[in-house]
């Protein structure tokens, strides 16, 4: 990983309007948990797991945050032309990908993990948590790593990474993997639920993971590593084709 590219990427994130969207995404589950607590909060574990942490955090906030950061880390450089500046330096391209990945995961984790933990704690306040918050926070960390790697790969593979990413999040992760259980091996969302299940010991009625915990951990790690290797390979063969 190249420390200069890492610092540059963090600065790019700070200066983008996308960081405002990140704040909104992070605050949404916390706001929802507060609203829930203000009403009749019956069956807290069930609501916290199925509506808040699974339905809102893992299915929406987590992938969207990673999509925004993962695709803009390199994608915006390619789009704005600054990629030429980085590509014509004697920095191995794997180090550039490493730095972009590290910066994106760091920022995504800074937004998503507190949002997961804080919203979960608010929603479960006074009720037996049984490791739900811990489980989903750890799952969100693995989700950040896997989703960010996937979206970085997308951004070096296509100029329409954001569009394809949105399709992937809402159609594949949100719909297809919900309808067909056989697709659970190819779903970062399912990996997250499986990992959360390792730590959260709630009844099956409250929380139904399609993958076993160890299986999910291995798959999430393998997908992260494999997509990063592919992203490096793709970036090593990357060409600037926008010339006269």
């Amino acid at each position, binding site marked *: 990983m190249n420390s200069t590219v890492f610092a540059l990427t963090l600065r790019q994130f700070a200066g983008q309007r996308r960081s405002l969207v990140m704040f909104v995404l992070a605050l949404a589950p916390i706001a929802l948990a507060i609203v829930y607590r203000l009403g009749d909060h019956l069956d807290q574990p069930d609501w916290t797991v199925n509506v808040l942490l699974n339905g809102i955090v893992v299915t929406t906030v987590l992938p969207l945050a990673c999509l925004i950061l993962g695709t803009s880390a390199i994608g915006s450089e390619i789009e704005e032309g600054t990629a030429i*500046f980085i590509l014509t330096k004697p920095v191995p391209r794997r180090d550039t990908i490493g730095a972009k990945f590290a910066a994106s995961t760091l920022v995504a984790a800074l937004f998503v993990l507190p949002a997961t933990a804080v919203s979960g704690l608010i929603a479960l306040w006074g009720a037996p948590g049984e490791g739900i918050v811990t489980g989903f926070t750890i799952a969100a960390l693995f989700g950040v790593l896997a989703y960010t790697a996937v979206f970085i790969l997308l951004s070096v593979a296509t100029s329409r990474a954001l569009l394809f990413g949105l399709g992937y999040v809402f159609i594949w992760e949100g719909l297809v993997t919900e309808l067909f259980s056989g697709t659970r091996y190819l779903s970062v969302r399912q990996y997250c639920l499986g990992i959360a299940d390792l730590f959260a010991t709630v009844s099956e009625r409250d929380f139904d993971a399609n993958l076993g915990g160890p299986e999910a951990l291995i798959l999430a790690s393998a997908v992260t590593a494999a997509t990063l290797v592919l992203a490096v390979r793709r970036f090593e063969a990357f060409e600037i084709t926008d010339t006269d």
Partner: protein
Amino acid sequence: MTDVSQDRAIVPPSRGPAVEVVNVSRWYGNVVAVNDVSFSLDPGITGLLGPNGAGKSTILHIAAGLLRPSKGTVRIGGRPVWGNQAIYWDVGLVPDKETIYPFLTGYQFVLLSAKLYGLDDPAEAAHRAIQAVDMEGAQDRRVGGYSKGMKQRVKVAAAIVHEPRILLLDEPFNGTDPAHRLQLMDFLRRMAGEGRTIVFSSHILDEVERLAENVLVIVAGRLAASGDFHAIRRLMTDRPHTFTIRSSHDRRLAIALVADQSVLSVDLSDERLTVRTSQFSDFVRAAPRIARNEGITLQELVPTDESLESVFSYLVRR
């Protein structure tokens, strides 16, 4: 974290011509952008001249390792360019595009470049490069607020911060005001004087004439001419030219002109006299003299189709 400066020590010393392009072609689907181009360059200034869309940027991008040639090879200092990040120790690229981070100041931008090159003293190198392009006064302002000419100069500073042996510049004078254009030209001459290889692209003949000792003329992706600028200039000047003439007696003038050595053909139709010549200067001197000797008043003598594109097309047809 990778320390880039460590890698520099393992780069083997470069051999062969500074830049060597061998039978390079590049196509996108059915479209051929660069067609079997070969040349080699040694220290000095070379102008890559051609009309817009001729393939100059594509050639520079291939030479800079940003594009893989569909066919052929490019070597810098004897080392293949494609997929070889180590060549950037020797190469600086100033792209035509705005490859700048608008949120950085000019100094920060050049410093960033120095750090990415892993220089021992990036701050000192950045100061030196900014001084070289006369940007000290604006170095603490954000690049996003710079004029196009200032952006161009700060891009040059970022490209020379590691004092490369080879500098590739894509349309470097675009947007620069006349004073800074001259300054940049002087600067490039100084760099060439230090034994560096400078290659710049331009579609403006005058820029190339003033700066380049060696010229590569690119038309429709092909190398139309290469070599000493003055020889190519002569070739351009001595090509067949067409003039339209209006006079007090076109028919008599046509008879007189056709006898002159400099005239290839005359055509008198639609009340207009058209003359083709292969000797531009001789004809321009001879035509008024012949008219005067015949007692004819020359009202108009206009060269037609003098666009750079037509000059380049002629070179390609040869």
